[in-house]
């Protein structure tokens, strides 16, 4: 939104394509009145004349400068001169026994469901995993009436203390933390703690946790469990952008190694909403040819990058979590591939060929980051379509003719 608004305000023609049904991404999902900053960016988009196309997922680039996107019932051909990727991040999930039971969700996953209308009042919830999202989710769920039984954070108290010391440098984060502390009062918070199993027959009934070394069973209705974030880099990879580690490599103007293609936010580093906003603005201004204006934001960006580095340090996964899956635990949920079948293989490619791991509809978006952590594997290539697409969309592609709609 920030990229589109800043670019459009420079007078260029901008279209915004979003997979979600409403603007605002994940952090600003839900009622606009809950997110005044989102509402103000949305107003800027409107007054700058940005065409927003929601509910469209880009699945292919048939040639440079053209993207194909699928809506619920149609396909769109999108032509661009400059492209800004702001594909965000997803939660990183770590497999543990029973994690495939219904009502075991991501931390952000459960929050998204509640924001999308799921009643949570009086439901018993265990929030677990790692990252600042856990506290935000716990506070949000409690505000909506949930009984949050405990928040289990895998990192140590000493790392958290270091993180708190870093926060002091960021005034906006301090006020956010104080607000959060108020909303969390009374919810038990346990560091050095993580879930070891989810139990139940047809759905979740209880969670087994390791709480500073002590084992404990907690009966609950939902487990909200996420281990920080993994960047959504599939589209950047499809377009041929070079990566730097897990992230999209960009220059000082957020331009990728593909000329005219920019990238902002989580795909370039996990840094949260402030980081995404400043990177998005730089990308939008640079793409609109206003390098001088973009440069004015460089200082702000280096500040938020400091916060991103603190996140990375604080919420690094501990090695004990590699022992979470049992032999029979499913790692690839799409194809039901278990841990014991995967440990026989030495690479992502070998595992794919022999077990179909990562070859289901999510295309490794869930098991990819998990197998990277558990086994040290790296997914090799991305092939179109990067999202499952309907046969008619693909056949339109083969026929070479699509109805240009946008």
């Amino acid at each position, binding site marked *: 939104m920030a990229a589109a608004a800043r670019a459009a305000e420079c007078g260029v023609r901008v279209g915004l394509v979003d*997979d*979600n*049904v409403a603007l605002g991404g*994940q952090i600003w999902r839900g009622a606009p009145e809950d997110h005044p900053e989102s509402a103000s960016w949305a107003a800027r988009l409107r007054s700058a004349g940005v065409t927003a196309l929601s*509910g469209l*997922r880009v699945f292919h680039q048939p040639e440079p400068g053209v993207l194909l996107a699928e809506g*619920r019932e149609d396909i769109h051909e999108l032509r661009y001169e400059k492209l800004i990727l702001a594909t965000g991040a*997803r*939660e990183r*999930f770590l497999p543990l026994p029973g994690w*495939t*039971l*219904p*009502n*075991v*969700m*991501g931390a*952000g*996953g*459960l*929050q*998204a*469901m509640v924001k*999308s*209308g*799921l*009643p949570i009042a009086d439901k018993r919830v265990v929030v677990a995993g790692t990252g600042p999202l856990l506290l935000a989710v716990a506070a949000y769920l409690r505000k909506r009436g949930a009984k949050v039984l405990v928040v289990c954070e895998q990192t140590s108290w000493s790392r958290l203390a270091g993180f708190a010391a870093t926060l002091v440098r960021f005034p906006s984060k301090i006020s956010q933390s104080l607000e959060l502390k108020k909303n969390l009062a009374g919810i038990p918070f346990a560091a050095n703690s993580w879930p070891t199993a989810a139990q139940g027959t*047809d*759905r979740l009934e209880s969670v087994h946790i390791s709480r500073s070394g002590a084992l404990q069973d907690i009966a609950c209705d939902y487990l909200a469990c996420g281990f920080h974030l993994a960047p*959504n880099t599939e589209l950047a990879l499809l377009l041929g952008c070079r990566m730097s580690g897990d992230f999209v490599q960009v220059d000082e103007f957020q331009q990728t190694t593909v000329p005219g293609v920019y990238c902002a936010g989580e795909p370039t580093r996990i840094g949260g909403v402030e980081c995404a906003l400043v990177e998005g603005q730089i990308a939008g201004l640079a793409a609109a040819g206003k390098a001088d204006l973009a440069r004015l934001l460089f200082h702000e960006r280096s500040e938020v990058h400091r916060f991103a580095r603190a996140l990375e340090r604080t919420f690094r996964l501990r090695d004990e979590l590699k022992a979470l899956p049992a032999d029979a635990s*499913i790692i690839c*949920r*799409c*194809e*039901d591939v278990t841990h014991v079948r995967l440990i026989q293989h030495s690479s992502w490619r070998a595992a794919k060929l022999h077990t179909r791991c990562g070859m*289901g*509809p*999510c295309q490794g*978006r*869930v098991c990819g980051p998990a197998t990277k952590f558990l086994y040290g594997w790296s997914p090799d290539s991305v092939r179109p379509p990067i999202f*499952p697409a309907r046969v008619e969309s693909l056949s339109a592609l083969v026929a070479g003719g699509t109805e240009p709609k946008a």
Partner: protein
Amino acid sequence: MSDSIVLTVNGTKVTVSLGATVAVAMTIAGQACRTSVHGEPRGPLCGMGICFECRAVINGQPHCRSCQILCESGMDVRTNE
């Protein structure tokens, strides 16, 4: 009431608030969204269109990511595709 929507999940009526997604309707109905390749019940995981665990048949169209689709009055949702 104008701020709620009635739809059916496997033929049973479910009432959700305006703006609710189909994944929410299925969870309220206590229905698993799909059955895995080895027969396990599955429900939504990511809530944001990434994991494909919540896919269902909506108005006859299979493989819909129910967490990315808003409920509409009279919608026919079928699980266990």
